[in-house]
């Protein structure tokens, strides 16, 4: 049987997220508890979380979360890391042994900062340097996989049901101003830890429910710009697209949403504001190959916020609710109620309409 990355595996899923607009930190327990009512949306072949604001004491360092098949792989990889980065701390990510989660690889984290000399040599900025380094490890080092590489954030994922994955990673011991969660239902895979969601690059993390029909069009386009889609998952390609549009091309979140979930031409033509019409036409014409079609609901986590987005036909469920300073997003309302029984203003965003929530400036 082919492993994830060697073959493209379609899957259905559950997603959930929470964010405090005031930057109040929340324990990770809530987020994995909330996946329980959506148990049936996963099949135990993958679950994971991303937490933002969880490493305040190392917030200036890139936190690399990594899987290693064995000790030798890790040692080799650490040599590579040391060539490029200053490692301020390296440790095993603490886990809890539970019968539901087995066969775990070696799971480590490194807080690193790029070596200036190397960046100058490669003529790149810091983020590009980190991204390329991650891509290099994931592409070229068999048995080593960077599954989280942002600052003051981290992804935690495993093969198993997500609620168990949360327990496994002791998420109740972390506090973050926002969390995203994912439970996976791949239709045909032995399950691989690296293939679980969220998928991340730098501080972008994506949880995704859907199976996009534009995958290969998107992949073959984005790969022109140095990205390598090793996992052949939607999440991966969407993450790269978001990174490309926002970080490389400098689009805003809303503009990026206008590319990947571009409104129909008829909708664009119906816009009364000519500037809006022009902008949307421009984005669609300029980035046709980054239009994502087919069903998806995604939550993009980034430094200081979340963006939820459905495909433009809204072929996947996704609801949003609020309470006080918190905003909740989930595939099902039950998950929101689990986190906040008194959640208000529950609504289902329309297809292609991004929901962007940002933490107040300076609050994280």
């Amino acid at each position: 049987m082919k492993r994830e990355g060697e073959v493209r595996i379609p899957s259905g899923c559950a997603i959930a997220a929470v964010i405090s607009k005031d930057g109040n930190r929340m324990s990770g327990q809530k987020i994995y508890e909330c996946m329980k009512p959506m148990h049936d949306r996963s099949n135990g072949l993958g679950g994971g979380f991303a937490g933002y604001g969880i490493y305040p004491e190392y917030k200036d360092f890139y936190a690399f979360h990594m899987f290693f098949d064995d000790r030798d792989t890790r040692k080799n990889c650490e040599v590579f890391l040391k060539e490029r980065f200053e490692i301020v701390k390296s440790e095993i990510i603490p886990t809890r042994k539970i019968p539901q989660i087995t066969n775990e690889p070696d799971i480590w984290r490194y807080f690193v900062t790029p070596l200036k000399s190397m960046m100058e040599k490669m003529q790149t900025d810091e983020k590009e340097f980190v991204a390329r380094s991650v891509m290099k490890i994931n592409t070229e080092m068999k048995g080593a996989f960077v599954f989280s590489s942002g600052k003051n954030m981290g992804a935690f994922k495993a093969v198993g049901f997500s609620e168990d994955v949360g327990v496994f990673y002791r998420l109740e011991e972390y506090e973050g101003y926002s969390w995203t969660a994912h439970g996976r239902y791949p239709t045909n895979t032995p399950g691989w830890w690296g293939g679980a969601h969220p998928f991340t690059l730098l501080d972008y993390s994506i949880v995704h429910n859907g199976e996009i029909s534009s995958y290969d069009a998107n992949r073959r386009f984005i790969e022109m710009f140095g990205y390598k889609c090793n996992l052949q998952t939607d999440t991966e390609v969407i993450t790269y697209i978001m990174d490309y549009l926002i970080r490389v091309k400098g689009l805003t979140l809303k503009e990026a949403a206008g590319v990947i979930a571009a409104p129909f031409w008829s909708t664009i033509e119906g816009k009364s504001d000519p500037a809006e019409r022009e902008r949307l036409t421009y984005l669609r014409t300029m980035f046709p190959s980054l239009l994502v079609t087919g069903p998806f609901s995604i939550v993009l986590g980034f430094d200081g916020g979340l963006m939820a987005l459905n495909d433009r036909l809204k072929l996947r469920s996704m609801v949003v609710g609020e309470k006080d300073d918190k905003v909740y997003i989930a595939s099902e309302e039950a998950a929101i109620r689990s986190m906040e029984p008194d959640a208000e203003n529950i609504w289902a965003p329309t297809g292609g309409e991004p929901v962007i929530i940002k933490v107040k400036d300076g609050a994280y």
Partner: protein
Amino acid sequence: MSIRYIYPEFEVVRNENRCIACRVCERQCANEVHSYNEEKNVMISDETKCVNCQRCVSLCPTRALKIVKSDCTLRENANWQNDTIKEIYKQAGSGGVLLSSMGNPKPLPVYWDKILINASQVTNPPIDPLREPMETRVFLGKKNGEIERDENGNLKCSLPPQLELSMPVMFSAMSYGSISYNAHASLARAATELGILYNTGEGGLHEDFYVYGPNTIVQVASGRFGVHEDYLKAGAAVEIKMGQGAKPGIGGHLPGAKIVGDVSKTRMIPEGSDAISPAPHHDIYSIEDLRQLVFSLKEATEYKKPVIVKVAAVHNIAAIASGIARSGADIIAIDGFRGGTGAAPTRIRDNVGIPIELALASVDQRLRDEGIRNTVSLVVGGSIRSASDVIKAIALGADACYVATAALLALGCHLCRTCQSGKCNWGIATQRPDLVKRLNPDIGSERLVNLMTAWRHEIKELMGGMGINSIEALKGNRLMLRGVGLNEKELEILGISHAGE
């Protein structure tokens, strides 16, 4: 009879029980196959003149006629086949180069027919085009501009010149002269109604058709016939024709007999003179010369119109395309070896060039490998026969397709492949006024619109099945394709997996 005699290729079968001697067949046959025997009140046929264009068959009001392949055969020989032998006889008789027309009829692989399309099941939904929007609009042109913002941080929405198509199909180049005024009128009117483009070919643009300019691609070829400033400015885009799939490496030759009246005026050459397009452009002997022509044409059109460079699919097409992409061209058009022609030497038509499917796949991949795929749009032609061919081409990586033979078929062409005779009974490949009038553009344009409308429906159905509701999400989406009966190498070049994988 003599050694020169070759038994007619076709037989006219007339059902005497049904023939009412109305003489329609006689009046409609420019080859003068049919005649009326007054004394006996019967129709008779001279089969030596029949080209099997089926005009008489189509117009016979009593279905009394059919044309069949003659069963007078030479002794079977898998190596020396009938046609091969007859060609030898012809050349032994004439000492000349054999001429033929339309596309390569040889049984070479048609890769479209060995590629299958995906559909959604369970894990993601097919989309019903009758219920949901299904978008086929395409923009052709460069898409590699930098994102720029004004002082308020708003996007500056300026794009390089683009061609907007309502569907990813255009009518490819057929010159006025090689085809008739009415054929051009039909194409121009249909393109306008459909929101797509047609292409003048290298015969210039008749003044009557300037009104269709926004839906016209004006071509500049090696003969430079009919090229002048107003002509360049009349179209929506300018195409430099470097080669043609049916006859890569050679030019064109429209005999003086067809350079009559408006054809001569439009081409800006004297009546009766042969219109000879040289094999090369004599100002382009290398890629850097091409770049100069591209920019000369951009200058002439004030950088408002995309420039297309059309080449035939030949062996190192990927490298050629890469060079063109870097020459400043906005669009590359590649014409495969099955593309049609009004006249070409048979040997060249049947033996030179490569299949468009392979050319497209390798060009698209090469441009991606070089990271320049978005600097140029890719249009492919050379026997795109149906909506599924279009879908497969787009999924392999094309932005749009050029169709010509299918368009001619819609106009009545029955692929008798004798365009070079100038006696097209369907009023298409002829300049004889009595024949030209047989193609009423009211009918012609309606049929073209019908055909493309039908294709558009089919394209939408196929897209919907794949769960794709916008054509741009199909472009280069090779995961939607699987090969059948192809070897590893072919699959590798096409960049697709085998069915079942």
